[in-house]
């Protein structure tokens, strides 16, 4: 039962990265691909109806974590106290930028929000990557099951690690580039004209960075987290996950060259899903590895009572059916390229 929930949480986080990933990415490239007011409204309109719904996947994943692995939740949420609060501020700032921007047309109003939107999206993408890096690298848990990480210490992989060290920064940069590519492909698919061309070009350029860093981070990860190597040698079938990632990243380049915007975006989805499932498969059965492996939290030590998990499974399935229906409905309703009139407020009207 614990393993099932381990994968369910993983699926929810993957959904979050796939969905909110593209609107974070769209934000991160906002200033690069859109220069005029009309172009910027195109980018905003492409994510307008969906970005807040996408963010709910993060809340849902957090809630599921709380439900299924309470020990992990207590430990991780107090240990990652500072970065979580900063992420929260960035999410607030980003939401406010999107909502406030179109209320006033002025030379000092919308550029401010455009900048904040871009900066907060950029930092969020980076921070989420660094967070994943922390989980893979392991945190300074002790026998009490708690830890606290400052934002940074000496940037080395010692015993007293901070949120940021050379490894997590590397993963953060990879995440940022990957989401810029992902977001670029989304904007490429959803827009037309100049924005479309710039986004495609940008995704194409980001691709090289993503490919190079993926190789580098994978190599480093195998050295840093011994569990990953162990899992892949014990169950070689797990190589299907990295294979999906490789196929995805190759597919992005292939489809970009063929100018198939939709398929390129979906290939990028496959790449992200492949990367995340590889990590999840690699660290199993650890839910939060410790720097000292003795204190690692595993599926068995962190999971909630079996009865609760069983009942929860029923509700999870029902909830997911609703969510899947809603997501399908929304994306179908807003399918196709966005059209932004000269005088339109961007989205919804």
């Amino acid at each position, binding site marked *: 039962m614990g393993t099932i929930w381990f994968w369910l949480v993983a699926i929810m986080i993957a959904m979050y990265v796939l969905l909110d990933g593209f609107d974070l990415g769209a934000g991160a490239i906002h200033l690069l691909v859109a220069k005029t007011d009309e172009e910027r409204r195109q980018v905003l309109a492409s994510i307008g109806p969906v970005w807040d719904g996408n963010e709910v996947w993060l809340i849902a994943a957090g809630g599921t974590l709380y439900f299924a692995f309470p020990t992990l939740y*207590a430990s991780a*949420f*107090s*240990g990652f*106290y*500072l970065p979580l*609060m900063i992420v929260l*501020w960035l999410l*607030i*700032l980003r939401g*406010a930028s999107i909502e*406030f921007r179109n*209320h*006033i*047309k*002025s*030379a000092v*109003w919308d550029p401010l929000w455009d900048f904040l939107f871009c900066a907060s999206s950029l930092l969020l993408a980076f921070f989420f990557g660094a967070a994943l890096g922390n989980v893979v690298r392991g945190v300074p848990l002790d026998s*009490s099951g*708690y*830890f*606290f990480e400052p934002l940074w210490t000496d940037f080395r992989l010692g015993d007293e690690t901070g949120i940021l060290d050379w490894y997590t920064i590397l993963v953060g940069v990879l995440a940022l580039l990957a989401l810029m590519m992902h977001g670029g492909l989304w904007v490429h698919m959803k827009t037309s004209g100049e924005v479309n061309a710039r986004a495609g070009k940008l995704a194409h350029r980001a691709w090289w960075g993503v490919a190079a860093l993926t190789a580098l981070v994978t190599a480093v990860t195998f050295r840093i987290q011994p569990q990953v190597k162990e899992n892949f040698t014990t169950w070689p079938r797990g190589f299907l996950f990295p294979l999906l990632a490789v196929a995805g990243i190759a597919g992005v380049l292939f489809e970009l060259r063929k100018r198939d915007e939709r398929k390129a975006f979906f290939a990028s989805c496959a790449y992200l899903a492949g990367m995340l499932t590889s990590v999840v498969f690699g660290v199993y059965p650890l839910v939060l590895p410790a720097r000292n492996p003795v204190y690692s939290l595993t599926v068995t030590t962190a999971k909630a009572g079996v009865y609760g998990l069983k009942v929860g499974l029923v509700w999870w399935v029902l909830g997911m059916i609703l969510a899947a229906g809603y997501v399908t409905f929304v994306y179908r309703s807003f399918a196709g390229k966005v059209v932004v009139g000269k*005088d339109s*407020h961007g989205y*919804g*009207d």
Partner: protein
Amino acid sequence: MYRRGFDVTNRFREFALVHGFHRRRMLRLLMLHRLRLHHCFVMAGVGAFYLLTKRNEFYGRTFVRAGVLVGAVAAILQLFPTGDMQGKLVAYNQQPTLAAMEGLFESQEGAPLAIIGQPDVEKRKLDNPLEVPNMLSFLTYRQWRANIKGLSDFPQTEWPDQIPLLYYSYHVMVGLGTIFIAVMVLAALLHWHGRLYDSRWMLWMLMVCVPFPYIANTAGWMTAELGRQPWLIYGLMSTASGISPRVAAGNAWFTLIGFMGMYTVLAILWLFLIYREIELGPDPGHRPTSEDAIVLAAE
């Protein structure tokens, strides 16, 4: 001018105008006020402001009418069944909380309902009380002489640790809630008699009332959180055992100040935007430009 009665074509035109052509601006106003009674008071308040300043009077009347009619229903529903149910939940599950909220120190048969009064926790009594006899017993158990446990019946470790603050936030919430019902019902009655738009004192009242639902809401939130102490999950997990053991107080201060700063900035921007929306009015011929922002900022 507005006439009472069934002028169907006029009504239809109003409806079409408000719901069709200006849905966007209406929606935006509504979106910023998601909560029911807040909606109504803001709608009615903005409408009253337009009527009192004699502009956008067409919309002013529509806003006042919508706000008052829905608001009267919402205000009453808040008392019964929702408020009543919530009160009973507290009475049955969190008995010390109920006693502290009501400022009831000694157990009594036929406990009174304190309207005002200042709790003196050290002497265990309510100073300068103004009370309705037997009312608390009736509201809680539907029996005039039912026994209600006072704080003295519980060990002091079970008491909420901020009794005066809890008492006042609860009374602010309930007091304002009562005023809301009075204002809204009175306004609805005036509307029924066709005199609402000419009653300047009532329009003033509606306009002045706009901030109060926000205060009542915050006070209610405080009541719930303070009342739950010293428990995080009532009777199961204490607040003290819920803290993050490794998060230093300095780090908590950092985030607290950060949140305060963030919310202050957002609140200022929000007030600015709301003021601007109201000032611009719902006139469809007028589009906001940068000049407006400058003019408004200079005013």
